[in-house]
């Protein structure tokens, strides 16, 4: 009896209100990238330039949810990815962008675009092309259901590799103590 070859796993990645540091960490998998590429094919990702997420096995999202576009992208991922992973501090806690959460958004915009002379040039931008900011920044799990979390700022390449290979092998991802980092 032969075991049928497993089709490659389809993986989508994106960064919402993030700094792409988590994506850099993904690339840091280094020499393991090649074996990983034998296991996965990329859908929407900064690495492919595919603009919309199609049906996928795994979605990896870094960054918090800070504006309307982030919400659309997150929903698109949730609708298309069987497994959704929050990648890094911002996706899991709101992170750096959420440091504005104790400030009033209206006052922030006013300060930056109206009051502060060095910055104000023609008022608060209102181009419909620009996504509007939410009043607060949220981690992914407050907007959609999230299946797994890889903490860290950024998570180590090893932690990402561990979770991805666990999932591809059909194991419940288990990070050992030294890979559960929040900084």
């Amino acid at each position, binding site marked *: 009896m032969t075991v049928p070859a497993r089709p490659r796993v389809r993986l989508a990645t994106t960064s919402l209100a993030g700094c792409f540091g988590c994506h850099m960490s993904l690339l840091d998998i280094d020499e393991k990238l090649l074996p990983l590429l034998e296991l996965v094919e990329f859908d929407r990702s900064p690495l492919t330039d595919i603009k919309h997420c199609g049906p996928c096995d795994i979605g990896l999202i870094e960054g918090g949810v800070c504006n*309307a576009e982030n*919400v659309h992208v997150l*929903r698109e991922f*949730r*609708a298309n990815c069987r497994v959704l992973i929050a990648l890094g501090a911002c996706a899991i806690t709101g992170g750096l962008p959420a440091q504005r959460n104790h400030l*009033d*958004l*209206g006052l922030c*915009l*006013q300060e930056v675009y109206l009051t502060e002379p060095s910055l104000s040039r023609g008022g*608060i*931008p*209102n181009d*419909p*092309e620009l*996504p*509007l*900011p*939410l*009043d*607060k920044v*949220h981690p992914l799990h*407050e*907007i*959609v*259901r999230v299946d797994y979390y890889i903490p860290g700022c950024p998570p180590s390449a090893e932690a990402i590799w561990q979770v991805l290979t666990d999932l591809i092998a059909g194991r419940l991802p288990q990070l050992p103590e030294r890979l559960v980092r929040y900084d």
Partner: protein
Amino acid sequence: MDASSLSPVLDPILARWGRTPDRLLQVLREAQDATGWLSPELLAATARSLGLPLAHVRGVASFYSFLALEPAGEYRVLLSDGVTDRMDGSLELGERLCRRLWAEPDHTAGDGLVSVRRTSCTGLCDQGPAALVNGIAIPRLDGRVVDAIADLILARRPLDTWPVDLFSIPTNVRREDVLLRHGLSPGVAIAAALARNGAAPAGMIAELRASGLRGRGGAGYPTGNKWASCEAAPGESRYIVCNADEGEPGTFKDRVLLAREADLVFEGMTLAGHAVGATRGLLYLRGEYRYLLDSLEATLARRRAAGLLGATAGGGPAFDVEIHVGAGAYICGEETALLESLEGKRGIPRNRPPYPVTHGYLGRPTVVDNVETLCAAALIAVHGAVAWRRLGTTQSSGTKLLSVAGDCTRRGVYEFPFGVTVREVLEAAGADDPIAVQVGGPSGTLIDCAEFERHLSFEDLPTGGAFTVFGRGRDLFEVARQHVHFFAHESCGFCTPCRVGTSMLASVMDKIHDGHGSRHELAELDRLTSVLGNGAHCGLGHTAMNPVRDTITRFAPSYERRLASADFAPAFDLDAALAPARRMTGRDDPASHLGDAS
């Protein structure tokens, strides 16, 4: 107010309470009565006078919800926010009052005249909705009473000139048994107990043990054992504490005992003192029952004059009683939190062991008993264990006072022998169409109509006395949600599971209420149940889940019909979260809105 102008206010209060740090709460409470709020200067002067760090004084003052650290108005109205108050229309009446007063809820009016806030159930469930004005209870609010209160406040009439019938609180006793028709004159029970003590070495304590009396506050610890342990504990001095901090929503039978049977309560305290060798008693009166303080003090004075308290209390050893008044903290009904509060501290439940019987008030052996327990002990002193055991069931001897409120025609206090069925009580109370009864308050058990043949007893349905009836049309999810908010408000905040868990619980219930709930939230409720039940420091945390647990098992549809169809929804409205940015940019184009996930 500067420090020198505070002296005339603070000095007599400090003198009355003996300038000891353990009277801090009583000093703060009276100082607030005198000045309307606890100003930073007043706190500093109090700290100096009692030799306490200012941070400690602020820590205590900020723990109790009746103490105001900001100006709270010349008239401070607290609307009772119990489940039965709301069933009787308290929310609408509150709005009406605010409208009439031009007041915004939860704010002190700019002119400093009035503030209108809500407070946990004030124990007037049989005659609600109720309010406290400057700490004094007003029952039976309706449109007419609310308008009258508003007029009196707007006319700046001093509270002591308001019509007395506004404050009249009948006891509403509906059924009397051995306790409520005891017919004992003051001193009789003390004499009977002294006779028992004289006749046998174990005397009164042995009789109590034989009677099978168990604590009436709800926990049901055998009273005789408690007294025996305290009596046997090493120590120079001992204390008897009467727990009159009746805070469980829906309970008011202790209020009735304190109003009608104060002598019997003090009688029980005195003979307890004689039995265990205590010379001092403390009664911790719920802040909401402040209006009973004067009559209780008058009873004490009368008893002192009659020789029933003092150097030879009722012909026995010395005993006297001091009354402390609480300041709005449900947790202080927990006996060790109550002891902390009696010592003038934040009401945080202690670690146990040691237990109060060996390390209680000021670290001394202490008996802490419920009001009704002490009354029952007095009865047993006179009539004996055998008579007491004739009533009730094997493990629940005697009678129990029930506070019956909610959807029934005859609300009030009922004394039934233990073992009475829920249905018998419902029939006596004229409950026509009940769908559920909350037995023992939110920390007790909520049962549905299939369980009305169950018995009120420690063997089946234990109860501290609350018996709240819900009729057809009542929404049990809302009842549970309100109770969960109550626990979050009353959590002392000491331990992680209760401090965070009760608030998380409230926000999950709010999310379901707001139509954003999903299976995810039901799983969250499970997770919170586990951590509260398994990790919390005291009974408040352990039982905070009970309203949810009971309604979700018995009234699941009231949850299910609120669940959004999606497997997950955010707790908030995403489109509303864009509103500040829309306002600032002036945009209203389609891209400036977020719809539901599609």
